[in-house]
């Protein structure tokens, strides 16, 4: 199944599509207001982009610097080449402590590595503690957005889920009541957890510390209550200096939700007395992407989700239509790197309008990369054969003004003289499902111009 098929399914529910589009557009407008209020916002984007470019160009150096500093702080540092190693390392740490109850705060990396199923298969209870993440975990769904993982659900859906899993009243849809139920439910898990797993927003090479940005404070609650903290990070999370951090914290929340800053920006540098802190540094395809000059800049991403909120396709097709850990425009340039065949339709799930590149706080040229992935996919024969051959044919046609003239005339006469039911048959002509064909003019511009010359 490709993106178009899954998108058509989502869009089949017109009212829900309207609601989804308007909800995310509301987030985009909040972002706009926050951005307009900072006169130097475009300079900040440029600065952030340069810091990330610089870091990626010396990633080996900064990774080793980070490791050295973190170790000096008493942190255990692990290296994972891929998802399997990442999962094995984390399971190993958990087992060393004979732990069975784990709390996790949102980490797209553990999602990407499918950590939860791995832990559950090994008899470990793992609870996602971000409200949105917990909702979709109860429903056994994947997140549909980077920072708003349950944005595809309405409060009625949440009410039904909590009725089934948390024992709230049937038909309860009051957000405050539902949130309170989740809070009570999660509080017990926090108190019982032996190990807390968190994601990492930024890893500071010069200090060896990690920074976690959340709005709910659940990462802090989990990490501070549990005996062991495991932070999982991709190699691209590095920034060189602590003084670079404020550039990103000013951009992140404004771009994501229109807040000036996330409610919590927590620094974890060393374990508290008697406790343990681990950091797992993961590659899982990132060095491969780093080796692709056209797509390297995708690793600058700070996971704000602004490209999703602005994307007119994402807003109308829903996050699940991308069938990838990271949906939306940024996901469409990251995912083919991991599995080109599976994700071959994603770079085509865009009009190349360019809004994603314009909202990106670290100036990733997302729409240009979408265009470039299309070329890579076609060269690798990962586009439909019908498209490939029709384009080849069109190529022949469009180098000859004579062939174009004849073909165009045939098309115009076809539309004019063939019955409407045929030219607008939905099975042959998907254009005509919702749109009329242009009304064919008597002559082409070429023909008109020739006539003028004769006159």
């Amino acid at each position, binding site marked *: 199944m490709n993106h178009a098929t899954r998108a058509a399914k989502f*869009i089949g529910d017109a009212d829900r599509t309207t609601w989804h589009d308007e909800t995310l557009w509301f987030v985009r407008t909040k972002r706009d207001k926050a951005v307009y209020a900072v006169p130097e916002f475009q300079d900040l984007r440029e600065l952030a982009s340069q810091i990330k470019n610089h870091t990626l160009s010396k990633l080996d150096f900064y990774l080793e610097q980070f490791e050295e500093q973190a170790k000096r702080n008493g942190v255990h540092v692990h290296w994972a080449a891929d998802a399997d190693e990442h999962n094995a390392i984390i399971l190993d740490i958990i087992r060393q402590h004979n732990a069975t109850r784990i709390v996790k705060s949102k980490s797209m990396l553990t999602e990407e590595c499918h950590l939860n199923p791995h832990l559950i298969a090994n008899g470990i209870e793992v609870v996602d503690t971000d409200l949105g993440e917990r909702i979709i975990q109860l429903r056994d769904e994947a997140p549909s957005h980077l920072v708003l993982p349950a944005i595809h659900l309405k409060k009625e859906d949440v009410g039904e889920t909590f009725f089934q899993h948390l024992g709230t009243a049937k038909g309860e849809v009051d957000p405050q009541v539902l949130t309170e139920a989740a809070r009570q439910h999660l509080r017990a898990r926090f108190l019982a957890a032996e190990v807390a797993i968190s994601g990492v927003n930024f890893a500071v090479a010069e200090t060896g510390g990690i920074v976690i940005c959340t709005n709910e404070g659940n990462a802090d609650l989990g990490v501070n209550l549990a005996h062991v903290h495991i932070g999982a990070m991709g190699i691209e999370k590095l920034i060189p200096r602590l003084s670079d951090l404020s550039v990103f914290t000013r951009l992140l929340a404004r771009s994501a939700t229109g807040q000036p800053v996330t409610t919590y920006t927590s620094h974890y540098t060393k374990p508290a007395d008697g406790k343990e802190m681990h950091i797992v540094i993961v590659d899982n395809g990132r060095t491969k992407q780093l080796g692709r000059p056209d797509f390297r800049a995708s690793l600058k991403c700070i996971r704000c989700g602004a490209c999703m909120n602005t994307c007119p396709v994402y807003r109308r097709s829903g996050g699940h239509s991308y069938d990838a850990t990271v949906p939306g425009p940024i996901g469409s340039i990251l995912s083919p790197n991991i599995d080109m065949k599976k994700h071959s339709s994603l770079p*085509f799930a865009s009009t190349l309008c360019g809004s994603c590149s314009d909202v990106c706080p670290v100036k990733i040229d997302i729409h240009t990369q979408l265009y470039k992935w299309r070329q890579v996919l076609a*060269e690798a024969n990962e586009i439909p054969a019908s498209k490939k051959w029709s384009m080849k044919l069109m190529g022949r046609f469009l180098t000859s003004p004579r062939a174009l003239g004849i073909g165009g005339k045939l098309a115009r006469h076809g539309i004019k003289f063939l019955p409407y039911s045929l030219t607008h048959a939905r099975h042959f002509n998907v254009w005509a499902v919702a*749109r009329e064909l242009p009304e064919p003019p008597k002559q*082409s511009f070429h023909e008109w111009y020739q006539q003028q010359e004769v006159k």
Partner: protein
Amino acid sequence: MKVALFVPCYVDQFYPQVGIASLQLLEKLGVKAEFPAAQTCCGQPLANSGCERDALPIYRHYVDTFAAYDYVVAPSGSCVYHVRKHFDKLEQTPDVQQVRTSAYDLIDFIYNVLGVKEIPGSFPHRVGLHLSCHGQRGLHQANESEMTPVRDGQLRQLLGSLDGIELTHLDRNDECCGFGGTFCVSEAAISARMGQDRVADHLRNGTSVLTGGDMSCLMHLEGIVRRGKLPMRVMHAAEILNGTIS
């Protein structure tokens, strides 16, 4: 100043009046543009589908056709953007470099090269402006809502200078219409829905004439307007400007 008119393939076949209006408008502004008959297409439909390699002969044909001109003007920002940005795939000979810098969207040419910022004439209608993404974000012909709340741009200024015109204030000033080249058929459901939403914004805010600088967006939107039998005319901006100026 040697100026050529580039009439994109689909405009040539389906919207000759837009080519005619462009030619006449330029003439009224003092520019006699030639129309090289050998022209075909910029190759964008193929390249956007991933088949850039198959588009190379089309690129070369374009270069051969237009290299001798100081300016190549087209009533479509999208084609111009493609020539400027994606002809980097060709070896950068002087001819290729020439066509990449000489390509101009019609409105951009009028506004920046000819320096015309006002058009004398009257068009007493409620006009909704559809900004093409490639013209706006690609060629920077208008401010972007991602950057600033100020809604301004070349076409807005030119149209705004007409007597009696009233420009519609849209809820979403610069959302994509969903045409997207082959996207309009490969993702037909999303494409249509985006177009419907765009048209609804215009309808809700009182547009009676829907216009823009890029006929490809307008072809898609017109298809939706006509399907819905909506009380809205769709015209390329060249038709409006050419019609008002005497």
